[in-house]
């Protein structure tokens, strides 16, 4: 944890494994995929529970509305595809089939962000969080590592209502120790600090932790908060961060429009305005390359966070 990276499994792998556990515990759990089950890892469930797995083919819109129909009959459907296809291709189905009647459907989009790497922009979900947050009544979560994923997928299954969870393709560094408690809508403070708070989620949490270590050598004391739930966002955690540290940097693997940064800024503006900085994609798609190369080019590394911290602190 913290300054050094120790890799766990990818969050998509943790999702698949958790689905299998849930399948054993609850016969109402059913799983749908759109011909990407080997990549989203819902295939792990398919192998164990053939009768409760529905491969809907490359037809995401039909998959989402079918999941809605299953939910009206008491099933708890988990529907998966890549984050990009799941949210962008089915937005109207999510709007009318799922969100409008507030049905108990769980959407899990893998391959979120640009860290999928080589496959390039068409496969990268960089607007999924903004779309999910625009659906009234949706819970939207971005787990940082395998421990967070297991906990949040379980909480999603217990929660009665629509949920979107983003998972990622590459192995994710551990930011949690086993046994940490999670709650939907409740951020976790990973590191206390006095000078500024970095609020992050997904893979950017580890980048934020490393940025905090680098800052500590420069005499800047950084607080790090994992805002795994973007909606409902943890208002108290944001206000507390603003009041105790007086400045906030938000870091996410997503377009800056409509993501975590926007959600945090709205709460801060309404309650306790402080200087803020933002790390994320600035009005652009990414491209093919290694995840590290892309993080560097598009400004998502710990070094970028450090620079944003220094810039933001000056405005205090």
């Amino acid at each position, binding site marked *: 944890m913290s300054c050094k990276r120790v890799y766990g499994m990818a969050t998509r792998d943790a999702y698949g494994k958790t689905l299998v556990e849930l399948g054993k515990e609850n016969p109402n759990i059913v799983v749908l995929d759109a011909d990407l089950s080997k990549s989203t890892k819902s295939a792990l469930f398919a192998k164990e529970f053939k009768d409760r797995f529905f491969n809907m083919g490359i*037809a995401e819109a039909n998959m989402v509305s079918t999941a*809605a129909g*299953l939910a009206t*009959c008491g*099933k708890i459907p988990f529907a998966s595809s890549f984050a990009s296809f799941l949210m962008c291709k089915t937005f109207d189905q999510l709007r009318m*089939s799922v969100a409008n*009647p*507030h049905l108990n459907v769980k959407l899990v989009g893998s391959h979120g962000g640009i860290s999928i790497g080589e496959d390039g922009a068409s496969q990268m979900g960089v607007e999924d969080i903004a779309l999910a947050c625009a659906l009234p009544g949706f819970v939207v979560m971005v787990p940082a590592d395998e421990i967070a994923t297991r906990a949040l997928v379980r909480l999603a299954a217990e929660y009665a209502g629509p949920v979107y969870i983003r998972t990622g393709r590459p192995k994710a560094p551990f930011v949690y120790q086993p046994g940490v408690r999670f709650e939907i809508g409740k951020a976790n403070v990973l590191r206390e600090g006095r000078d500024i708070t970095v609020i992050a989620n997904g893979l950017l949490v580890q980048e934020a932790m490393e940025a905090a270590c680098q800052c500590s050598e420069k005499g800047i004391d950084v607080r790090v908060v994992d805002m795994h739930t973007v909606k409902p966002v943890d208002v108290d955690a944001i206000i507390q961060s603003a009041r105790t540290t007086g400045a906030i940097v938000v870091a996410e693997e997503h377009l800056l429009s409509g993501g975590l940064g926007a959600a945090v800024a709205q709460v801060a503006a309404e309650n306790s305005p402080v200087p803020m900085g933002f790390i994320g994609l600035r009005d652009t798609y990414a491209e093919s390359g290694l995840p590290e190369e892309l993080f560097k080019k598009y400004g998502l590394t710990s070094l970028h966070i450090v620079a944003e911290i220094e810039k933001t602190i000056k405005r205090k």
Partner: protein
Amino acid sequence: MDIDGLRGMAKTIRRDIIRMIAEASSGHPGGSLSATDIITALYFKVMRHDPKRPGWPERDRFVLSKGHAVPALYSALARSGYFAVDLLWTLRKFGSPLQGHPEMGRLAGIEASTGSLGQGLSIGAGMALAGKLDKKEYQVYVMIGDGESEEGQIWEAAMAAAYYRLNNLTAIIDYNSQQLDGWVRDIIELEPIVDKWKAFGWHVIEIDGHDLHQILKALDEAKATKQMPTVIIARTVKGKGVSFMENNVEFHGMAPTAEQKELALRELS
């Protein structure tokens, strides 16, 4: 209810539709009137349902995918006893549970939120899949429009429902040949519609969608069909029952004036 009873009920529902839409000063009379005989047969003869227990797990389900025809459904629900008939006259008004298009959760008996076309068959397929998983006997009926069949999702659902052998699912196409902008054949031709559905693996029945004998026979046949879902291509007339609305595309989405309302009600008396 016997055939004469159903005919009388269909007439009552048509009168309700005219009154509701005139009262609201907006709505879709054409597609509501074309769907009326089929909806009447479903709610007053074919479907197992209980207005006192709208959440009864064993009930047959009806999804109105062409949500703009909802006045016909609201009337059938009220006349079945789901809610007071007087509530019908609040259609589309602020605070009414009778939304302009159906919304699940606002009104007992509405099984899905529709109105954005193309989604209902997939939702019905999900209900039918759940019925198979739970080994329940209920049937799922989905009414779609002919214009609505231009939506790609309809054909995604058609593929999947046939693949999963959802013989507990029946699609009914209210084939009134018109859509908002004009005749379907002048916009995107759907023919040969029977061949298309057969090619997608469905049992296809073609009927006159205003002949109650044919409607009941087709719905019986659909229920008895094994191994595959059934689609009933119901040839209908847009605006059926009101002479000046029949085949008049202007009444796709236009309310009758006070004078037209009286004229229509006289024709339906």
